């Protein structure tokens, strides 16, 4: 583009992010090689998995944890820390 044609974009031309939490739209599930699988039966709602999920991929609901597989990178911390084996590991794809 010729220099004289460069448009001025006002605030859109400033490197700030105005939408809080917009990254939740990003599919980080694509990084996952293994996935956590939740078994409501075994769950005691202790909140451990919820607390320790580093990617806030576990939401807390009145029914207990809810895994957001878009955000879950498959670190397996929830699986490792769940005291009742209500979270278990499963391979992605094949």
């Amino acid at each position, binding site marked *: 583009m010729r220099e004289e044609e*460069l448009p*001025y*974009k006002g*605030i859109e031309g400033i*490197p*700030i992010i105005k939408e809080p939490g917009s990254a939740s739209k990003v599919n980080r599930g694509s990084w996952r090689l293994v996935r956590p699988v939740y078994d409501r039966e075994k769950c005691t709602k202790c909140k451990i998995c919820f607390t320790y999920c580093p990617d806030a991929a576990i939401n807390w609901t009145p029914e207990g944890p809810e895994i957001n597989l878009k955000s879950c990178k498959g670190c397996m911390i929830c699986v490792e820390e769940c005291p009742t084996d209500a979270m278990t590991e499963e391979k992605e794809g094949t």
Partner: protein
Amino acid sequence: MKQTLVTGNEAAAWGARLARPDYIPTFPITPQTECIETLAQWGADGELPDTYFDKMESEHSVMSAAVGAAAVGARVFTATSSQGLLLMHEVLYIASGMRLPIVMATVSRGLSAPVTLWSDHNDFLDQRDSGWLMFHAENNQEVLDTVIQAYRIAEDPRVLLPVMVNMDGYVLSFTDEPINIPSPEMVDEFLPAYAPAHTIEKGRPITVGPPVLEDYSIFRAQNHVAARNAFEVIEETQDDFEKIFGRRYHMVDEFMLDDAELVLVTQGSMSTTAKAAIMEMRSEGIKVGLLRLRVIRPWPAGAIVRALKDAKAVAVIDRNLAPGKGGIMFPEVVETLYHLDDRPLVSSFVVGLGGNPQTEVKIKEITSKLKEDLVSGQPRVEWNDIEEM
């Protein structure tokens, strides 16, 4: 409007005071210190009720704190010089890249090593890639006026860029001159309260300064376009300024150019001496004039071409040096004239490093050397202060 005898440092402090900044982070360095001392005393005396005066531990932190405060939406002023300006160098790019309209007075002083306390323009010009708008004042009145104007320009939604207002160390910073100190009311009329493009406040979380991937060049281009928008904003600002204060400044300052065959291109306070010399030379019939570069960024190519297109020979007087290259402004001025059909001869003069005084005699010397060049058709590069070494 109050007429008073003040130094350049005090003039900058007055400019700041009248602009009512929210925050002033500071660190001492000669020859700037008097500016922040003046503000500190006003603060202690209750004269800056809307301002937090802060003492930082380095200039790097001064500019960092300025960025922090400006990013949340505060109006910020600071001042520095020389080594201090270089120490905050990295953060200057960040301030402009974030498009924060900080205003900073810089008081030019030569750079170490070796250490000097005296003035040249290397420190100021070292910032010419930083994305800041850059003004260089000729006298104390212009220092004060430009600080006030700087806020108008910086905060304009078409611009949103930080601004540096430079004065020469000693020759302005420590020299008393009588100037008009505008009344707060008039300044309030000229300079509206700051309405930031974005702020940090409760309920509206934003992220400032994230990394970017592909869009990087777009943000850089926007910094450039914003700087070029300043052309228009600077002109408009002058109109309003003149209406209220009766004075006006230009992108470049033209002196006796109308029929000038020889033109001296200068910056800063030496321009005053040069004008005096030119008046004398004019009385001797020498057709010489002067172009003072007042605005360095954005680079006023149009104004320069208009001013120099009829000259026969031009002397670019650089009070600075890029070792291994030469005077810093020389290439920019020359480039600007390159595609003229009938371009003038341009010689380069490197002068006044580390405070070497630029007297009328020296200006006349430069002029007669330029005349020689015109006759010989050979441009020169001259270290005008050095007679033997």
